[in-house]
C-alpha cells in the first residue's frame, strides 16, 4: 500500500482510498475535506455541482472514522466521497433535476440508491448538474447553466449526467451516480474519459429516482476505473420491493469479474449498424484499435447485424416523450416546487399552466408536447403503438445477436465532446449523440462505456461501449477490465491522467 500522506488524495482511486481509510493511513474526514477543497477550487470553472452538502458530508465522514475507531467492520467503499446526480432524492437536501420548477424542494425521503450509499458508508458530497429532467446530451439544458468538460472548458461534458462525469474527470470525486435513459451515463463517460455503467433495467431500484421515462430509466455507477465502478455497482444493486420493476434475483458478481478481466475464448459481436457513416474518424480509429486489442487478448470478434436498430432513435423519441409527458404532469404548482400566477386573479387550471410555462425549459416543453401528441386518441396506434412494436423487434435483434456472442461492442458516441452552443439549437443533431446507446435502453440490457484513447484530430477522449444481455452485467466488467489493463500496460496510466490540469 502506497503511503498516501503527502499525495493528492483527490487523484486516488476509490478502492485505494477505501483501503487507506480502513488501514487508518488516512481518515475519511481528511479524504472528504480534500475533495471539498478541490470542489471549492475548480468547480467555479467546471460547474459540476448544483449543491455541495459540506456539513453532512463531513459528518458522514466522521461517522466512518468513529466506526473504524470502534473496530466496526467497514464496507468496501466506506469513507469514499461520491457525487450524486440531482435526479435522485435525498432527505432534506434540495433536489432540482436541473429544473426551475423544483427549485427549493427538499424531499422528505431518501431514494433507494441514497439508502444503499448511506448503508455502505459512502460519503455524499452533493448533487450534480444535469440537463433539465435528464433531457439532453450536453448538460446545456440545465436551468442552472451548463457544466464544462474538464478536458476542455469550452466543450460539453456529455449529458444528461454531465455534472457527474465532469466531477470525476475534474477529480472532485472518485465516485459518482448517474442515470441512463438513452445514454446519460455512457455518453458523458465517453466524452470525459471516465467509466460508466447502465445496469440491466431493474438491476438498481428506481425508487426515489425522479422519472423521465419509467420504462427506460436506470441509475448506475460512474468512476474513473473499472474496479471502482464495479464496487459502486455492487453497493447500489439488488432487489427493492418498492420498485415493481426491480429484479428479484442475485446481483451478478461484478466485482469478481472486474478483478478477473479476461476475454480469452469470449465471442464478441461488432454491431454493423453502430459504426460507419456519422461516426467521427478518430472515434472509428480508436474503436478499430480496440477491436484489434480484444482479438490480441484472445477474444473472437465477429460482425453481427441488428437490422432494426435503424428505427431505435425514432421509437425512442416517441416512447420517451410519451412517458415523460405523463411523468412530468405532477409538476403543477399545487403541492411542491414553483407556483406562479397565484395572485387571486387566476383559476386553478391557469395557475397550473402559468407555473409550467414559467418552470419548464424549452427542451422539456418540446418533449411534453411531442409525448402529449403521440398519446392522443387517434394517434396512439400510429406513434406509441408502433414504437412499442419497434421496441420488440430491437429486443429480438439483441436476442439473436446474443445467441451468437457473449457481448456486443460499438463506439459509445459518434463524436468526441462538442463545443458548448454547437448543437443546442438543433435538437436532431443533439438526439443523434445517443444513436448507439439508445437500443440498449429500449431492450433493457446492461452496458458500459470505457475510455479507449484520444481522437487524434481533437485530442479528446473516445469511449468503447460494451453491451451484455440482461442480468449478465458481470460480462461488462470482465471485458472492460481486460481492455483497461491492456491499455494501462501500454500507456503506463489511466487515460484520465492525461486530462489537462485545471
Amino acid at each position, binding site marked *: 500500500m502506497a503511503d498516501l500522506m503527502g499525495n493528492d488524495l483527490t487523484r486516488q482511486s476509490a478502492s485505494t482510498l477505501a483501503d487507506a481509510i480502513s488501514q487508518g493511513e488516512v481518515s475519511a474526514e481528511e479524504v472528504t475535506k480534500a475533495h471539498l477543497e478541490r470542489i471549492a477550487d475548480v468547480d467555479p470553472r467546471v460547474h459540476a455541482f448544483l449543491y455541495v452538502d459540506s456539513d453532512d458530508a463531513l459528518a458522514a465522514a466522521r461517522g466512518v472514522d468513529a466506526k473504524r475507531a470502534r473496530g466496526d467492520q467497514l464496507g468496501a467503499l466506506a469513507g469514499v466521497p461520491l457525487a450524486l446526480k440531482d435526479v435522485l432524492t435525498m432527505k432534506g437536501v434540495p433536489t432540482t433535476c436541473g429544473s426551475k420548477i423544483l427549485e427549493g424542494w427538499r424531499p422528505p425521503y431518501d431514494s433507494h440508491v441514497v439508502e444503499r450509499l448511506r448503508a455502505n458508508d459512502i460519503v455524499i458530497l452533493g448533487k450534480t448538474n444535469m440537463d433539465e429532467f435528464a433531457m439532453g446530451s450536453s448538460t446545456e439544458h440545465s436551468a442552472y447553466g451548463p457544466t464544462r468538460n474538464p478536458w476542455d472548458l469550452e466543450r460539453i461534458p456529455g449529458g444528461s449526467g454531465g455534472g457527474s462525469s465532469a466531477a470525476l474527470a475534474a477529480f472532485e470525486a472518485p465516485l459518482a451516480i448517474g442515470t441512463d435513459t438513452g445514454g446519460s451515463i455512457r455518453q458523458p463517460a465517453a466524452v470525459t474519459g471516465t467509466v460508466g455503467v447502465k445496469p440491466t433495467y431493474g438491476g438498481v431500484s428506481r425508487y426515489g429516482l425522479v422519472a423521465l421515462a419509467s420504462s427506460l430509466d436506470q441509475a448506475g455507477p460512474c468512476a474513473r476505473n473499472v474496479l471502482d465502478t464495479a464496487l459502486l455497482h455492487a453497493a447500489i444493486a439488488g432487489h427493492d420491493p418498492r420498485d*415493481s*420493476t426491480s429484479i428479484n434475483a442475485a446481483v451478478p458478481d461484478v466485482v469478481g469479474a472486474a478483478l478477473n478481466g479476461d476475454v480469452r475464448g469470449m465471442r464478441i459481436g461488432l454491431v454493423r449498424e453502430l459504426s460507419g457513416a456519422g461516426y467521427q474518424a478518430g472515434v472509428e480509429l480508436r474503436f478499430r484499435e480496440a477491436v484489434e486489442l480484444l482479438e490480441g487478448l484472445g477474444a473472437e470478434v465477429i460482425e453481427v447485424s441488428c437490422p432494426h436498430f435503424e428505427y431505435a432513435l425514432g421509437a425512442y423519441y416517441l416512447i420517451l416523450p410519451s412517458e415523460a409527458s405523463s411523468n412530468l404532469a405532477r409538476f403543477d404548482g399545487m*403541492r411542491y416546487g414553483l407556483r406562479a400566477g397565484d395572485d387571486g386573479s387566476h383559476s386553478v387550471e391557469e395557475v397550473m399552466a402559468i407555473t409550467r410555462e414559467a418552470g419548464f425549459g424549452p427542451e422539456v416543453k418540446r418533449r411534453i408536447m411531442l409525448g402529449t401528441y403521440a398519446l392522443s386518441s387517434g394517434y396512439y396506434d400510429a406513434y406509441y403503438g408502433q414504437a412499442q412494436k419497434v421496441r420488440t423487434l430491437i429486443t429480438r435483434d439483441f436476442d439473436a445477436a446474443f445467441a451468437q456472442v457473449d457481448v456486443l461492442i460499438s463506439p459509445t458516441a459518434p463524436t468526441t465532446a462538442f463545443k458548448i452552443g454547437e448543437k443546442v439549437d438543433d435538437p436532431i443533431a443533439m438526439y443523434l449523440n445517443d444513436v448507439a446507446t439508445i437500443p440498449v435502453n429500449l431492450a433493457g440490457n446492461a452496458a458500459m462505456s470505457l475510455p479507449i484513447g484520444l481522437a487524434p484530430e481533437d485530442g479528446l477522449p473516445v469511449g468503447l461501449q460494451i453491451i451484455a444481455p440482461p442480468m449478465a452485467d458481470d460480462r461488462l466488467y470482465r471485458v472492460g477490465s481486460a481492455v483497461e489493463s491492456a491499455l494501462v500496460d501500454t500507456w503506463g496510466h489511466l487515460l484520465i491522467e492525461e486530462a489537462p490540469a485545471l
Partner: protein
Amino acid sequence: MSAHADELMDYDQAVSLFEPVIGLETHVELGTNSKMFCSCPTEFGAEANTQICPVCVGLPGSMPVVNAVAVESTIRMGLALNCDIASWCRFARKNYFYPDMPKDYQISQYDEPLCTDGYLDVIVPTDDGPQVFRIEIERVHMEEDTGKLTHSGGDTGRIHGADYSLVDYNRAGIPLIEIVTKPIPGTGALAPVVARAYVAELRNLMRSLGVSDVRMEEGSLRCDVNVSLAKPGEPWGTRSETKNVNSLRSVERAVHSEIERQSALLTSGGRVVQETRHFHEDTGRSTSGRSKEQAEDYRYFPEPDLVPVAPSLEWIEQLRASLPEAPAAKRARLQESWGITDFEMQTLVNTDALDVIEETVAAGVEQSAARKWWMGEFARSAKEQGIELSQLRVRPADIVRVETLIREGALTDKMARQVFEGVLAGEGDVDSVIAQRGLVVVSDDASLLAAIDEALAAQPDVAEKIASGKVQAAGAIVGAVMKATQGQADAAKVRALLLEKLGVSE
C-alpha cells in the same frame, strides 16, 4: 350550470312513448387495510392529510406497488359476477390535470381489465309477480381513488367561484373497483326499479364476499347512471351520464327523472346532448355539467411503473372454489327453510334485514321471532335515525338473551320491548337495561292471586263463563291482570293460577 329547470314529461306517458336503455358504472371502495399502491391506512374520517406518504401524494421519485389483496378482491368480485378473469393484464394511466390528483394521472385499467363479460341476475317485484332481469357486465377493473376537495366560498360548492379549495389526500390511492354494465334494454317502465335492484344486489354481493362493507353514507359506493331513450323499433338514442349518484334511492330517482326529462325534450323537437349531468339529492333532479361532445382525451397508455398482473389459473380456481354462497342462492335457501312467501322475502331484502335476521337465527333465535323484532321495532328505529339495521346498537346476542328471558318467564313481550328501547337508546346491554329500568316480572303467587281476585270481582260474568268451562274467556281476566301490573306479570302464570283457582282445566 344551466340553472333553469328542465321540462319534464309525466313518467307513465314517457314510458308509453319511449323505451329506455340504461347503463351503470359503479365505483366501490374496497375494504382493504392499506391503499392500492402504498401501505398507508384506509380508515375513514381521519384528520386531513394524516394518512399519506410519498407514493399516494405522488412526490417526485415515488413509485406504486400493487396491493395484492385488492387484486384478490377484484378477482373474487369478477368470479361472483360470472366474469372471465384475464390471465395477463396491465394498469394504465389516465392523464388529466386536477388538483385532487396527486400525479395528474390516475392509475386505472383501460383496454385490459382484470374481469370481463359477466352477468348478475336481479329480481324485481311486479304486479305479475317477481321478474328476473339478467344484467350483463362488461368489465370489472381496479383503480385508485383521488383526493377529496372542499371548496370554500362561492355559492355552487364547486371549484369555479370558490374563494379557496382544500385538498385532503387521505382518500388518494384508496383502492376502487369499477363495475360497468353493458347497455340494459328491455326494462321499459321498470328501468328505475331495475337500476336500483342491480345496485342493491351488487352491494349484497360485495358484502357477502367481504370485499367491501359498502358504507354508502360515507360515499364508498358511487354510481354513474347512463340513460337513453328510443321509440320502439328505432335505434338507441343519445345517452346522458348522470354522475355521483350515491344511494339506492337516488339511483332510482335519477333514472326516473332522466326518462322524464329526455322524453319531454324529444317530444318537443329537441335532441339529447351527450353530456355529464349532476344529480341533486334535494330535488331528485339533475343539471347539465360539461358537454362530452368534445370528449376529453385521457391519453391512456400502459403504466410503465408497474409489471403486468398475471393471476395463475390455480389461484383463480382456488378463489372460485372458496366463494361464499351467492346472495340469490342464499335467499332461495332461507326462504324455503323459513317457509316464507316471495313477498315476505322481498320485504326482508328491501329492508336490508336478511343478513341480520340470518345472523340472529344462527345465534339460536326462532326465525319468526327474529323477523318480528328486526322488521318491527328495529326497522322503525333505524328508519327514524336514518341508519342501516346493522348500525343499530342492538346485536343478535341481545335478541337471544331477551328471547331466553321471555321463555323463562322473566320478561313479558311488553317488557321485552322496553328492554330493546333501552338497548337502542344506548343504555347498555339487555341485563343492565333490565336492572336499571327495574323490569321484573311479577310472579309471586300472592300478588298475582290478589290481582286475579280483583279482576274477577270486576267482571263477575266472565268469571262465571270460565267456571262453566269456557276457558277461552280467561283471556279477558289475564288481560286485566296484565294491565293492572303494567305488563310486568308473567301471563302464562296468571292464566294457570286463574284456571286453578276456578277449578277448570285447559
